[in-house]
């Protein structure tokens, strides 16, 4: 299993047990956070006026105060500003990695799910092999070959999530393909193409929204991990993982430097999880 499959499984589980339409406190909070994060990503200036790279050596290492709610870093940059502006970075990296993983997953999963036994067998074996590079291993292998950096880290995260997407999409395709309503459509005299377009594809693709939402949270955490390890974005870029990495040096004297970027990573991941599950539940009970 991949992280994504586990997330998807948990979402399914939660959707099964949860109440259909109630807007929970968690969902409402997650929704507000998502709006905040989107605003931060699209127009960061709306939330934080300053320059995320602008230095002010004289006010370095300031703890959180009214003027700097999240404190300042070693060069006197305002951490709140950097965290807000970093949202764009993290979301774009997360979205790009998810797009790569999802794209590859769709291609592989569709091949396996639609093209008959031989292709299915081959793709399945291939995926099985990729799963033997668990977690970040595939990403690290990719980075050691193509060198570190934001672009490679993004591709690496995308690549390492692709097998998970592929397997979910394949399973979904196979479930939908053999669903009773597909047989019912055959009995109504629908052609293969009509069935594919009207039933199989929509019912396979709809859950991808859930997957992508869950996946983006995962991708952000992984990309931040790579940055933290010095294999992705580099300081002074206002990327959360890179900020944490820079803050690690000063952890004994300036905890706020690593606490707030980390907090935003966690909040984003939790938001993605809660929203993904909420969408899942709504789609099932809609």
């Amino acid at each position, binding site marked *: 299993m991949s992280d994504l499959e586990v997330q998807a499984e948990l979402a399914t589980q939660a959707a099964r047990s949860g109440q259909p339409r109630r807007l929970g406190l968690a969902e409402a909070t997650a929704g507000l956070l998502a709006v905040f994060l989107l605003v931060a990503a699209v127009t960061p200036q709306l939330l934080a006026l300053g320059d995320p790279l602008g230095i002010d*050596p*004289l006010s*370095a*290492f300031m703890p959180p105060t009214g003027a700097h709610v999240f404190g300042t870093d070693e*060069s006197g940059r305002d951490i709140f500003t950097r965290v807000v502006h970093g949202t764009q970075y993290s979301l774009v990296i997360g979205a790009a990695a998810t797009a790569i993983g999802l794209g590859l997953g769709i291609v592989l999963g569709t091949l396996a799910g639609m093209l008959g036994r031989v292709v299915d067998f081959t793709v399945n074996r291939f995926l099985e092999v990729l799963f033997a590079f668990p977690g970040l291993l595939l990403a690290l292998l990719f980075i050691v070959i193509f060198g570190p950096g934001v672009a490679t880290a993004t591709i690496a995260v995308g690549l390492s999530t692709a097998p998970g997407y592929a397997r979910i999409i394949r399973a979904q395709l196979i479930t939908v393909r053999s669903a009773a309503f597909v047989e019912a459509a055959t009995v109504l005299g629908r052609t293969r193409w009509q069935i594919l377009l009207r039933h199989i594809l929509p019912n396979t693709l709809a859950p991808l929204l859930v997957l992508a939402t869950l996946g983006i949270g995962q991708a952000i955490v992984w990309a931040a991990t790579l940055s933290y390890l010095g294999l992705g974005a580099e*300081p002074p870029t206002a990327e959360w993982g890179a900020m944490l990495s820079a803050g690690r*040096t*000063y952890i*004994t*004297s300036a905890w706020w430097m690593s606490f707030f970027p980390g907090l935003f990573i966690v909040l984003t991941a939790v938001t993605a999880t809660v929203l993904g599950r909420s969408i899942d539940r709504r789609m099932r009970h809609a």
Partner: protein
Amino acid sequence: MRRPARPRRLLAATTGIVALGLLLAGCTPAGPNEPAGEPRSGGTLTYASGDAEPSCLDPHVGGNFPQALVSAQYLESLVSRNDAGQIIPWLAESWTPSDDGLTWDFTLRADVTFTDGTAFDAAAVQANIAHLQNPTTLSSTGYLALGKVKTVAAVSPTVVRFTLTEPDSALLESLSQPWLAMESPAALERSQDENCASPVGTGPFIVQSWVKQNAITLVRNDDYVSPPADAAHAGPAYLEEVIWRFIPDSASRYAALQSGEVDVIDNAQPDTIVQAKQSDSIEQLDSPRPGAANRIELNSGQAPFNDVRVREAFIRSANVDDAVSSLFQGTATRSYSALSSVEGTAISNAALFDYDPAAAAELLDAAGWNETDADGYRAKDGVRLSVEFPVSTNQSIPAEQSVFEQIQATAKETGFEVNLAPMDLSSWYAALASNDYDAVSAPYTKVGPDVLRILYHSDSIVPAPSGYFANLAQVNDPEIDALLTTAARTTDTDERSSLYADAQNRILEGFYLLPLYDQQNHFLLRGDVQGLRTLPTVAVPTLYDTWLNR
């Protein structure tokens, strides 16, 4: 298995601290806690190094700073240096150069044996030099330091004679370095893998075991007799055992010290030094490394820095003082010299490095960079004034990378676009080798002012077969070349100093480099650790006089 020959950038490979140093604590031998009482024997001291774990404990092989740090505990050199910068006896009792400076006779101590029982004598010295000069040893630092040594002969068991190809005023300084320390000839006979795992020397400790990625265990050499002349006591070391750990993460390292898990840490970060000053239980030892200061070299070999006005403009546009004071929080002092402040021959000229954006702007106007592009950067003939600045994340500590970021920010105000490119060591070397840089910072440790020849003689622009060259500023000035070559042959101290002073002035006035601070070398220790000091050669700590007041 050849370790890529990297001309001594002894810098600390992974987390190398670059340094600048405050002379405040200096290298006073006494432990920081004064009412210490009589030294006591016994106990285990845990040392946590932030430097990379060496791949070989024999500093002949390769030769970098992490090796020097640990090998100083079990290997000894022929000579040492005292706090005043004078060469003092160690395994060699005395030495005499010939008048032409081409022959040196060293008289060795007769009472020293290696810890495997092999006698230390002239033959052993011969074997060590041969080992260093043997290409299969893959020595880099030691090999280069012995560049002028033609032959080594045993005159008697206690007298060994070095014959040189040309006079070398830096010979003694070279021999004082840990990378040229003496090892048991019998041990050297073993395979390199074996010798790397457990080198045998004459030092106060013996390598007992080495668990990779975790710790090296050193035990006391009870038969030890050969402390350097400036040691505080004689006889065996006080400590029974030393655990030498590798903790690359600086925060973990400091926290480990705070919690008493370890007794001494190196590569202390500025913020932890400040914290330590407020702590009763933690003391600080600051010992800047010799050789070059930490500085940014400006590549004068290509545009835009082939124009001295642009170089000066860049230097004038960089607000280094504010950066250093905010980031190093008083733990590092601004340098205005090419050399480390511990080098007696260092010339400092603060006036050349004032932060003066107005002057910088005028210089750029004069040099023709008088256009302003859409992003606010200066340009000439439509070409933006940009400076490629590859940064090795292995060699520049986070605080230093932040200094570069602040320089980037202040230089932008004058119109320079500084493109900081943090990269891994391998890519960094690649960028330098392909001349793909305009500014770069590369620490360099060597005992004595001869480092200037390595860094600024035009010969050093020619890349070694490996592609590396030390003259990163690409200074190509026949007058500087002449001064440095002459100085390297001049044994007269005053004359040598004056030659190096001339050379330094000319280098500084050419605006080839922007000095930042000494190569930082801060140690933090538990308050009950007494008698820790660094060897005044390359400022590595020695635990010989150290004892535990607990």
